[in-house]
């Protein structure tokens, strides 16, 4: 208990750390944060560091929300979310990815996909459980696992194999304490996707070792020239998979924080307990907007995906022309070129690129095992900016070559 107020101010403020939970104290700030601070101080920067669409939320979605507010729709919804929205999500998943969920007890609307992942982990982890995470991956999985008392176990995926998870590499990391496998395909940060053929051996390992899978499919709609295969749609995987997704990427709705989780009624029921005691329900206005997006937003979504696909081709060609090796990303909106040939670490490369050539990209090292030596470049930005960015990257690579010669 705090008895002396002076302890809380001035030079004594450092002592507050002693109040923090050890688990939280151990968490390191995100490596992305450092680049955010560096970029914030510079001017005229082209940013390839943004993990969100450059489109605004389609107007009809915003308008539906505004209209609902005008009508006074500002109260709580049921804990799991508006029944119409859950129904909409069920229909959407059935139509798009051939997975069936009962909106009554298998779907929760959450505050972004992030909350859904947190709920899933908190519902599943007994302290000491090992959570398997293919890396490089989205920066949150490992810390959120640790906060939940689990032990994150990274599984390295490699560029030579398009950053796909293999059954062998998964099996090699399994121990009697392994409980959950977190998947994220299409992948942030690599843009890698998994086909049905890629998934089948993974599913066998999951079944053999009785794992639960949290499948983060937030980028499912952003798949280019290849159909997204939901992990839950594989034979035998439905009951042991918690499908997590949301509206941020497909419908350009990042700030709305609307996501959802679907799975076996027992798992969803456990997640709902945590959800109802923490956030109560997802914001009602966000739910209205999400329903509108699902109901009338497919055309706009297709238009945005088409545009990402065009820019994907542009950046991959541009990076290769700039002299960097770049595997073909088939999903999400990131290219993940290798900067190894320059002799710099990904952190050094990204820092110098930002400070000397005013292009912000994220070093692969922040995304975990296998990320070192790569650079995450988001192509959710305009064609003219992308053209300029790859030209600058090319000039930087040429300069680095000159430096190495000298």
């Amino acid at each position, binding site marked *: 208990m705090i008895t002396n107020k002076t302890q809380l101010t001035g030079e004594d403020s450092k002592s507050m750390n002693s109040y923090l939970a050890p688990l939280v104290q151990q968490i390191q700030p995100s490596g992305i944060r450092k680049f*955010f601070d560096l*970029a*914030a101080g510079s001017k005229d920067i082209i*940013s390839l*560091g*943004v993990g969100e669409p*450059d489109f*605004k939320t389609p107007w009809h979605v915003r308008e539906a929300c505004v209209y609902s507010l005008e009508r006074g729709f500002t109260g709580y919804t049921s804990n799991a979310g508006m029944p119409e929205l859950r129904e909409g999500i069920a229909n959407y998943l059935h139509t798009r990815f051939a997975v069936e969920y009962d909106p009554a007890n298998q779907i929760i609307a959450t505050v972004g996909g992030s909350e859904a992942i947190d709920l899933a982990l908190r519902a599943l982890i007994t302290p000491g459980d090992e959570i398997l995470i293919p890396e490089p991956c989205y920066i949150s999985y490992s810390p959120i696992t640790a906060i939940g008392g689990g032990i994150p176990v990274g599984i390295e995926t490699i560029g030579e194999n398009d950053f796909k998870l293999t059954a062998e590499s998964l099996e090699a990391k399994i121990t009697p304490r392994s409980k959950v496998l977190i998947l994220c395909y299409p992948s942030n940060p690599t843009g890698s996707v998994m086909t049905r053929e890629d998934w089948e051996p993974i599913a066998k390992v999951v079944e053999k070792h009785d794992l639960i899978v949290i499948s983060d499919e937030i980028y499912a709609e952003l798949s280019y020239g290849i159909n997204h295969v939901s992990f839950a749609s594989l034979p035998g995987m439905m009951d042991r998979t918690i499908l997590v997704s949301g509206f941020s990427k497909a419908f350009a709705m990042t700030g709305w924080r609307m996501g959802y989780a679907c799975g076996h009624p027992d798992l969803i029921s456990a997640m709902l307990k945590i959800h109802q005691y923490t956030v109560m329900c997802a914001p009602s206005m966000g739910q209205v907007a999400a329903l509108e997006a699902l109901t009338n937003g497919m055309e706009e979504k297709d238009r945005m995906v088409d545009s990402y696909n065009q820019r994907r*081709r542009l950046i991959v060609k541009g990076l290769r022309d700039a002299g960097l090796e770049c595997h073909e990303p088939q999903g999400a909106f990131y290219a993940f070129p290798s900067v190894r040939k320059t002799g710099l670490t990904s952190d050094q490369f990204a820092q110098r690129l930002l400070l000397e050539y005013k292009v912000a990209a*994220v070093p692969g090292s922040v995304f975990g095992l296998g990320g070192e030596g790569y650079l995450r470049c988001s192509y959710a930005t305009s064609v003219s900016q992308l053209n300029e960015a790859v030209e600058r990257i090319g000039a930087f690579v040429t300069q680095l070559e000159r430096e190495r010669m000298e």
Partner: protein
Amino acid sequence: MKEMNELKRKVLELLKEDARTSTALLATLLGAEEEDVKTAIGQLEKDHVIVKYAAVVNWDKVDDEKVTALIEVQITPERGRGFEGIAERIYLYPQVKSVYLMSGAYDLLVEVEGRNLREVANFVSEKLSPIDSVLSTKTNFTLKKYKQDGIIFEEHEEDNRLMISP
């Protein structure tokens, strides 16, 4: 053939966004061969699908402002030619920027551009109204252009995303 038609449609969409996009860039964006893009554009131009490459100008930002009026015109159609002959008589005037045959309360919607109100008014009273088939005109001056050809003139939606985000 189907692939060529698909390529043409995509090329049209991109050129509508920016007519100055080079064939090399179009080819990269669409994942096509540059030669195929050139062929597609050549055919589109020859077939008059691409009629002209033009700039969309916000004249309000230029010193010599122009005045635009949308004129609703009621006419008596001509035997045998309907509205075609009279429409042609009207659209051949250089002051006339566009002519549409409309359903509803009037027949033609004529967009006329002039240096000032008087010039447009003179055109209407001296050229348009005296045409035999013209029964009536109703002139509506545009006060401000917010959007034209799908392009919003004063875009408020800036890119205010964070420089770096997860």
